[in-house]
């Protein structure tokens, strides 16, 4: 099963290598990893998608917790949460096809952010399903380039994952 982990880490150089190294060394599969700073400049947050059964997932979480610079690990998969991913897609767009593409883009509430002589760049934000669906819809036109950020996730409502080391709810 696929799990979404929210991981707070100290914002130090090398911390990404520690986390990534842990996954490869222990044979855990990362499907995606997104990292960026948080409301606290000393803390970064990673959202890691991992394919694992329960036993492996437990190991992933416990091994992550052993890293000195990892402050908190939470499996948000089964919690009420919002997750989003951003993708940019450069699609072949001969003038004759443009109207059709624009229509698809509107249906998905995506945006066209660049138009070249033969291509357009489409930007989409959404959950994974939506991004996948748009990708499939545009593929027939010829996808020249695709880049996805990987998922970021946040718990809904008052439940949160603060960066001061204490948590509001486990």
């Amino acid at each position, binding site marked *: 099963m696929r799990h979404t982990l929210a991981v707070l880490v100290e914002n130090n150089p090398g911390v990404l290598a520690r986390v990534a190294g842990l996954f490869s060394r222990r044979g855990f599969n990362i499907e995606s990893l997104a990292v960026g700073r948080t409301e606290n400049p000393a803390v970064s947050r990673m959202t890691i998608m991992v394919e694992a059964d329960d036993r492996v997932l437990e190991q992933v979480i416990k091994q992550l917790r052993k890293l*000195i610079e990892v402050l908190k690990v939470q499996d948000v998969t089964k919690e009420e949460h919002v997750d989003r991913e951003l993708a940019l897609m450069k699609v072949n767009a001969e003038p004759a096809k443009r109207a059709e593409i624009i229509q698809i883009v509107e249906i998905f509430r995506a945006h066209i952010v660049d138009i070249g002589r033969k291509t357009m760049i489409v930007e989409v934000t959404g959950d994974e399903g939506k991004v996948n669906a748009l990708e499939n819809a545009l593929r027939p036109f010829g996808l020249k380039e695709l880049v996805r950020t990987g998922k970021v996730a946040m718990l809904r409502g008052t439940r949160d994952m603060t960066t001061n080391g204490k948590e509001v709810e486990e």
Partner: protein
Amino acid sequence: MKKKMSGGEILVRSLKREGAEVIFGYPGGSVLPIYDALYDADIQHILMRHEQAAAHAADGYARATGRAGVCMATSGPGATNLVTGIATASMDSSPLVALTGQVPTALIGRDSFQEADITGITLPVTKHNFLVKDVNDLARTIKEAFYIATTGRPGPVLVDIPRDVSGGTARYVEPGPVELPGYKPLVDPDPAMVPAAAKLIAEAQRPVIYAGGGVVSSGAHEELRRLAELIMAPVTTTLMGIGGFPGNHPLSLGMLGMHGTRYANYAVCECDLLVAVGARFDDRVTGKIETFAPEAKIIHIDIDPAEFGKNVRVDVPLAGDVRRVLQKLLDALQGASHQAWMERVDTWKKEFPLQYDTNGLKPQFIIRELDLLTGGNARITTEVGQNQMWAAQFYTYTRPRSFISSGGLGTMGFGFPAAIGVQVACPGETVFDIAGDGSIQMNIQELATVVSNDLPVNVAIMNNGFLGMVRQWQELFYRRRYSYTEIYGPDFVKVAEAYGAEGIRVTKPNEVRPALEQAIASPKPVFIDFLVEREENVVPMVPPGGSLSNMLG
């Protein structure tokens, strides 16, 4: 205003504050400022002959004392030479602080002369590592390094110090308490789990305690003995757990696993409760995991929650410092007796003792003689292979930290430098490295270290002319095709003498006792070259991937 100090001086002062008494090291260009500070510092430095040996010596010191061992090397090749020693300490959870020089900060990342990304290289084999970029961070970093190495599940920590940091100047500021928000070592178990464990123990008819290195490292040997006697459970130890329970205790089953005793393995196969104490269900212990302790409920006590369920399912996990957990558990327990079970175990002990035949000069006999002669009171280190297994099987260890061996990584070349660390830590004591003729050649250059530092370390070489353990596997599983396992060695007596140590050759059983006596009495380091039976095998043996119930030999 306090006067400014060099980074090297700050380092020395920080080491002293942490209680470090000795550094095992080797100098070079990027540690020159540190060595300059050491020149007139009142901290001992032992000049090794190879950085790998420096790491093993610091590790040996740590295992003998429970305090962090400190090793040091220069950047580049010095640092990479430490790696095997760091990995060895990591696999056996030994508190090691490794200090490395690094090229100046401005040259990092430019393939500078003697640059190696040692924090990157040691990422998977350290508990944590640091690159100090500012001399003002040095004192605090050293404090954190010792704290991380020695608390929780101990392990090696590396601190990489660029030359401009050790050569820079700053005021020494006493670091405040360590604050690592992501590191909160466990101490006490979850109180709710203790009654659950006590209940399983009370219900057990056929309990076995399986004790590992965590017993030794947390100093829980007394508590373990009380537990075993209170609930009347026989105790088997892992290789790392040897010494954590007295080998001469009536409840002792010796070691379990691949080269464990039959009675230990049989007891594990038939027990209905296995209490794992500071052990991690390594494959050399469990054999085929599906048939390991098939009828047992399992209580697992460990400082590292990541060990629960890693290899086997656990019924009651108790996370915390092993000693503290055992104390809490003892409070919650009532005495028990399992007469029928103990009789069954004792029958196995009588029926299947460890044994060997006495034709020719046998390594097992030599170790038994050493055991008798020293009353089980020597500090024994080992190399890796058959010598290590015989040292585990045939010496009676009665106290913790008296058996020091590379378990997890199985590093040939560990025993001799580790014995140096042990001898430095325990000056008046008899120290023996039980070695093979292959392994001893991996760090034989340390003869110069023992001679020049007057360390009366003894090395008992079980010289079989083979890489014996590999030869044994070739005999058993590769139809005796001894592919590159016959190994030529030098005249070890002459080598020892060339370095200024003493050398003794032993070819007959009746020479064993006098040679050992001579070595123990000698104020010099001694190599004893025992020309033993060449194709002796370590038995009993669980073939790799086999079940503990199926032992050869």
